[in-house]
């Protein structure tokens, strides 16, 4: 299939208008020796029908699990039908960044609404219109703290998602910042004493997640106090963003930045992407934060309208002095998140409660199994850690019947041998959970 509308006639006429005898003349600037005859290693073209069958075969090579008990940064939630119908509106998805406000009011308003919802959810005053994912959101917040303060030390709780910390390391290494990792205590929360000891006047930011990677809810306000006393800023993340529907927002507990993965808000699992980074902050950082910001303004007749604003923060104006290099972001995922939140409204709390009920049930169920124990004691949202006689074997058994078990923590936390991180959302039924224990035992 070929998507060029050019007929032979068109091409002739256009060549004449340009004054070239053939297409190749248009590529005269490419030195002869570098001209390519033919792209290697690409299968020949397909008709539309062939394309569909080739791609369907490939999709079928994947195996969709019966159900899954792994969250660990990506969560299986029900997506109301309206979300797909709205993000499927071609006026939205076939547009690009709304540089030209007058013909982009739809997207601009939708994003302004998204920013407002996120600010309210996170207990902050402002939010941008998305970073790449939770990891880059947290990382850019940390980098920003360092840039603003001129300090070079960043404290990250070990209970922050391992991959987020790896991304943080990658960015910090390139910038010569040092990352100090902070232990968790037996409850699963961060060790406040360890924090006190690590905090010195070189610390730009403290990074925590609540719920953290273990599903544990952190005591953000204590962390915030400790950090602020030492002039450090607090970057608070979260794992499953649906937790924002019921947990006290980090913003309200004193965090300077609230960042995290927004996938749970109306975006499919998609094998890891596209997702969206939620980035919210205190108002005072408005002119420093990375990413797009939509602002309300007026037209010549005083009618309300929306535009991209404070662009002097951005690379296309500030170049090497920009607060970030981000340009394309995850706008459509943010739109989905906005529609999702508008669809649920206050029901987001009900959803969070349901997740908690399911989680409790699964935990109790699994604890009935011989040799299974709780690893941590602090309260959790929809994930929890249990240790068992043989984690690998458990997952193997479940896999054989098409069920995804828990996340094996040992690879990231050597000290947590045979410990599994389980997740239960509204997508798992009582019946599913009852089956699980049958299969494992």
């Amino acid at each position, binding site marked *: 299939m070929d*998507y*060029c509308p050019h007929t032979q006639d068109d091409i002739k006429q*256009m060549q004449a208008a340009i004054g070239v005898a053939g297409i190749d003349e248009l*590529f005269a*600037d490419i030195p002869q020796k*570098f001209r390519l005859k*033919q792209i*290697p290693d*690409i*299968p020949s*073209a397909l*008709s539309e029908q062939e394309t*569909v069958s080739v*791609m369907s075969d490939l*999709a*079928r*090579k*994947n195996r*969709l699990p019966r159900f899954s008990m792994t969250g660990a940064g990506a969560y299986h939630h029900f997506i109301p039908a*309206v979300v797909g119908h709205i993000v499927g*509106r071609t*006026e*939205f*998805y*076939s*547009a*690009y960044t709304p540089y*030209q406000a007058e013909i*982009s*009011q*739809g997207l601009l*308003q939708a994003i302004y609404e998204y*920013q407002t919802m996120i600010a309210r959810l996170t*207990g902050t005053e*402002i939010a941008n219109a998305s970073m790449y994912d939770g990891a880059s959101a947290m990382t850019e917040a940390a980098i920003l703290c360092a840039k603003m303060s001129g300090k070079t030390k960043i404290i990250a709780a070990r209970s922050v998602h391992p991959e987020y910390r*790896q*991304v943080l390391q990658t960015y910090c*290494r390139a910038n010569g910042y040092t990352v100090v990792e902070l232990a968790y205590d037996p409850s699963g929360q961060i060790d406040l004493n360890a924090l006190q000891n690590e905090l010195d006047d070189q610390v730009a930011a403290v990074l925590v997640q609540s719920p953290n990677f273990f599903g544990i809810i952190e005591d953000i306000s204590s962390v915030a106090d400790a950090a602020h006393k030492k002039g450090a800023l607090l970057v608070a993340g979260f794992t499953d963003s649906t937790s924002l529907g019921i947990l006290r927002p980090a913003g309200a507990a004193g965090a300077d930045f609230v960042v995290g993965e927004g996938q749970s808000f109306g975006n*499919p*699992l998609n094998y890891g*992407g*596209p*997702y969206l980074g939620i980035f919210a902050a205190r108002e005072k950082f408005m002119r420093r934060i990375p990413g797009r910001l939509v602002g309300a*303004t*007026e037209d*010549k007749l005083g*009618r309300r309208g929306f535009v991209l*604003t404070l662009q002097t923060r951005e*690379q296309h104006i500030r170049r*090497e*002095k*920009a607060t970030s*290099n981000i*340009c*394309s972001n995850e706008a459509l*995922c943010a739109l989905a998140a906005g529609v999702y939140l508008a669809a649920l*409204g206050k029901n987001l709390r009900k959803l969070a409660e*349901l997740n908690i009920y399911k989680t409790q049930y699964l935990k109790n169920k699994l604890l009935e199994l011989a040799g299974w124990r709780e690893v941590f004691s602090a309260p959790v949202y929809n994930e929890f850690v249990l240790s068992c006689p043989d984690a690998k074997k458990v997952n193997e058994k479940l896999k054989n019947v098409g069920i*995804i078990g828990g996340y094996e923590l040992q690879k990231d936390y050597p000290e947590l041998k045979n410990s599994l991180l389980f997740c239960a959302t509204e997508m798992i039924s009582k*019946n599913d959970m009852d089956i699980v224990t049958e299969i494992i035992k």
Partner: protein
Amino acid sequence: MELIFEISKPGRSATDISKSDVPVINIDDAIGKKYLRNELDLPEVAEIDLIRHYTNLSRRNFGVDLGFYPLGSCTMKYNPKVNENVAALPGFTGLHPYVDADFAQGNLQLIYEMQKYLCGIFGMAEFTLQPAAGAHGELTGVMMIKKYFEKKGLKRRVILIPDAAHGTNPASSALCGFEVMELRSNSEGGVDIEHLKSLMTEDVAALMLTNPNTLGLFERNIEQVAQIIHDQGGLLYGDGANANAFMGKTRPGDLGFDVIQLNLHKTFSTPHGGGGPGSGPVGVSKALMDFLPVPRIVKTGDNYSWSEKFPDTIGRVRSFYGNFNVIVKAYTYIRSLGAEGLKRATEMAVLNANYVKERLKPYYDLPYDRGCMHECVFSGKRQVAENGVHTTDIAKRLIDYGYHPPTIYFPLIVPEAMMVEPTETESKETLDTFCEAMIAIAREAKENPDGVKNAPQTTPVTRLDEVLAARKPDVCWKKP
């Protein structure tokens, strides 16, 4: 239009939550009051309200499916619908990133083959698909460059960037701790070789070159440029955002580039989504392979899996594996076009750009009058000088004619720049009517400049006050 908050009413909801099939517990006890929020200030609307709100919003937005969208440097080509359909197959959308590889062989094969295809198209040794966008790819590439020199025990501080380059180039370099030095363009719009020689020292890690550059001009001296960089042990970075200009006609790898990033959402036709998601794969030469981010995909027999066992990697640049579902669409695009189709896309893209250039040349200043590649850049200087009509005015007036304006005021080296990238999916008829509109506006600028300055008039709002927006920022709605 009213805001979703303004049509909200307590008690309404557009979806509902299932009754619990497991015992209901007391949340206050289970979690502790101090950890719980007491308000949740989200809109409350019925499904009908929600659908009408967002559907009507969509009708106030312009996309390439509605009309011509020659936004330079952004490659707003038409994106085939079949790609949307296959990418929406449950097999592709339904998998958790942490499922055992046995569940994801289809996805893994797709990623593996996509990397292979890109290597073939661009002549690189290996690709990573992890970066989420072009700028993310730039950062990844620059990090690899940094690591490359560290490995050699060298510390090079500088990256050279042409004055015409896209803002993300210097921004990415800075975000990686490099010092940016600006390289002048010559009178032909190419690299000023002498200036390059004078800047190129042992302290320069790389030259970040966009070829064709943001003027849409191919670097004729590319061989010499590469030579100069390489002679000093430097690396040549290629910003591949303009790959739609050469895919199938030449290969960065053959031209001497050591690293390039692509913008799949541009060249490989995935919908831009109103600003994203995109995807910014990075390709490298043999010399840089070891530094690629992890995880990397490995094939053993017919089996695919992820591996992190690459000691020299720069590490991880994103959670999971990148914008997978975007990659599915780009992969589909490559499969349906095949080698010949990709080449034809490039040829038609360049044909279209040159056609527009020739047709509009008499009416707008063309700072660099030579054959262009996939886009051409005009200057509104004449209109400013003669009629006080600025490029913004021309852009806004185009809206009234039913077109999305070109990219304006970029590249920075062209005053009052108008950067037109038609892409290959536009027909001669479309280009002709667009050119006629541009010509008509040139006339209007003379005969009725105020009319142009008051554009647009056909939109739900007229020109918006951006100064007010920046002076009194309102980025979060507050109940009056």
